[in-house]
C-alpha cells in the first residue's frame, strides 16, 4: 500500500506538470497577440492619382491616371507590418487632350508599350504624428527603380453595413522625372512632377 502511495505521489506531480507543459508554450504562441495587419484593396472609383508639371515656366498642367490598383496592409499599432503597394497602368494617362495623351504614352515620355506598368512598394512606414505617416519605398517607372519618401495622411476610416470597412489616405509629393529616364523637353516641361494621391481602400473580404 505504501508503495502504491509512493508511486501515486510521484506520478501525480508528473501528470500535473505534463498537463501544464503545453500551457507553458502558449505564451510563445500568444506573442502574436498583436492584431494582424488588416488587408485593404484600393477602391478605384473613389481614388485618384493626379500629376502636375510646369509648362514653359508659365503654368502648371495637370493630368491623371485612370487605371491603377493597390494594396494596403494596415496595422496602426505595429507599423512594421504596415505596407503600401501600387501598380499604375501607364497607358491610362489622361491630360484632357487625346493627342497629348498619345504623345505621353510614346517613347518621348512614358513609353507605355515598352513599360506598361509603374509600381510602388513601400519599405518602411513611420509615424510622424496623429494620422500622419512617413512612407519610404521603391518607385519603378520606365524600368528604373528609385527610392522615394513622402508624407501620407490618414484622412479617415469607418465601417458601415452597406459599404463595409473603409480607410482613406492622401499624399502629395514631388519626383524628378529625369531620374526615371524621362528627360524629353526639359526644362520647358518641368523636371519636377508633383503627384497627388487620394486613396480610398476597402477591407479585403476573406
Amino acid at each position, binding site marked *: 500500500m505504501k508503495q502504491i502511495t509512493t508511486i501515486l505521489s510521484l506520478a501525480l506531480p508528473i501528470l500535473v506538470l505534463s498537463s501544464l507543459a503545453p500551457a507553458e508554450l502558449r505564451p510563445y504562441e500568444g506573442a502574436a497577440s498583436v492584431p494582424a495587419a488588416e488587408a485593404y484593396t484600393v477602391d478605384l472609383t473613389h481614388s485618384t492619382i493626379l500629376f502636375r508639371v510646369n509648362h514653359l515656366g508659365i503654368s502648371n498642367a495637370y493630368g491623371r491616371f485612370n487605371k491603377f490598383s493597390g494594396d494596403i496592409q494596415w496595422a496602426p499599432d505595429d507599423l512594421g507590418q504596415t505596407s503600401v503597394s501600387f501598380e499604375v497602368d501607364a497607358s491610362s494617362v489622361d491630360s484632357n*487632350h*487625346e*493627342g*497629348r495623351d*498619345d*504623345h505621353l504614352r*510614346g*517613347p*518621348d515620355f512614358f*513609353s507605355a*508599350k*515598352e*513599360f*506598361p506598368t509603374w509600381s510602388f512598394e513601400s519599405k518602411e512606414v513611420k509615424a510622424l504624428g496623429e494620422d500622419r505617416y512617413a512612407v519610404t519605398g521603391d518607385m519603378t517607372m*520606365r*524600368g*528604373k527603380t528609385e527610392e522615394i519618401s513622402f508624407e501620407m495622411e490618414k484622412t479617415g476610416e469607418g465601417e458601415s453595413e452597406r459599404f463595409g470597412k473603409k480607410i482613406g489616405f492622401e499624399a502629395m509629393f514631388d519626383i524628378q522625372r*529625369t531620374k526615371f*529616364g524621362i*528627360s*524629353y523637353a526639359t526644362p520647358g516641361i518641368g523636371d519636377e512632377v508633383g503627384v497627388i494621391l487620394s486613396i480610398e481602400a476597402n477591407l479585403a473580404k476573406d
Partner: protein
Amino acid sequence: MILPALSPALVAGGVLLLAKRTRVAFAGLAGALGYLAAHTALLGLPELEPVAAVERMPYILLAIAAVVTVCGARASSVGDALLLLVCAAGAWWVTESARSNDLLGTAGGLLLGSLALLSYASSQLLGSISKGAKSWAAPLLLATSALALAPALVMGRSAVLGQLCGAVCAASCAAAFLCRRGDFEEEGALMARAAAPAISLLAACGALYAYLDPWAAGCLALSPLLAGFGLQRDEDWSPRYGFGATSLLCLVGLWLAYKGMPAPSPYDY
C-alpha cells in the same frame, strides 16, 4: 535645338577627317559617334544599364561600328559573321521589351529575325555599292532613307526618335559632303556600312513603341536595300536606278506614315 542637329554632323565630319589622316577604318565610327553626340545633346549620356530601347541604341550602333572598324573595308567571312551576330544581338536587345510584353505576338521570332537580317543586309549592301560608285553615294543613300524616316517617326508621335533619326541623316549628309569635296575613297562606304542598321532599328522602335504605321516602318526600313536596283552586271552601280528605287520607297513609306498617323495631332498643344 541647334546642338542636337549640328553635333552629329560635326562629330561625323571630324571622325572622317581624322580617319583620312590616320587610319581609314576609323571612318566606321563616324555614324555611331555622331549618333552618340546627338543622343547626349538630346537626352544626356546613355544610361550605363539601359532598359529602354532608345537608351540601348547608341550601344548597339557603337558595337556595329566597332566590328566594321576592326574588320575594315576588306570583306571576310569572319567579319561578316561578326557583323551578322552583332546585328542579331542588336535586334534582340531593341525588341526585348516588345517580346516580354507580347507586343510582337506569335510573329515575334519572325520579326526579330527579319530585323536582324535587314540590319545586316542594309549594312552589307551600302558597304558594297561604293566599290563601284563614287564614295559619296553610300552615305547619301543612307541620308535619303533617314530623311524620310525622321518625319515619319515624328508623325508616329515620337519627337525623340525623329530627332535621333535626324542625327543619322545629319551625320550621313556630312559624310557625303566631305566625300564629294575631298579625295576620300573607302571612308564614305565604311561610315554608311556601320550606320545603316540604325534605319531598320529606329523604324522598328517607331512601330513597336510609338505609333508609326507598321507598313510605313517596313517600307522605310527596306528603303536602303532598294539601292541594290542600281547594281549592274559589271559590278558597277547606277546612281539613277539606286537613288530612284530608294527614294520611291521612301515616298511610299512617308505617305503610309501620314495616312496611318492617328488624329488629332499630338503636337497641337
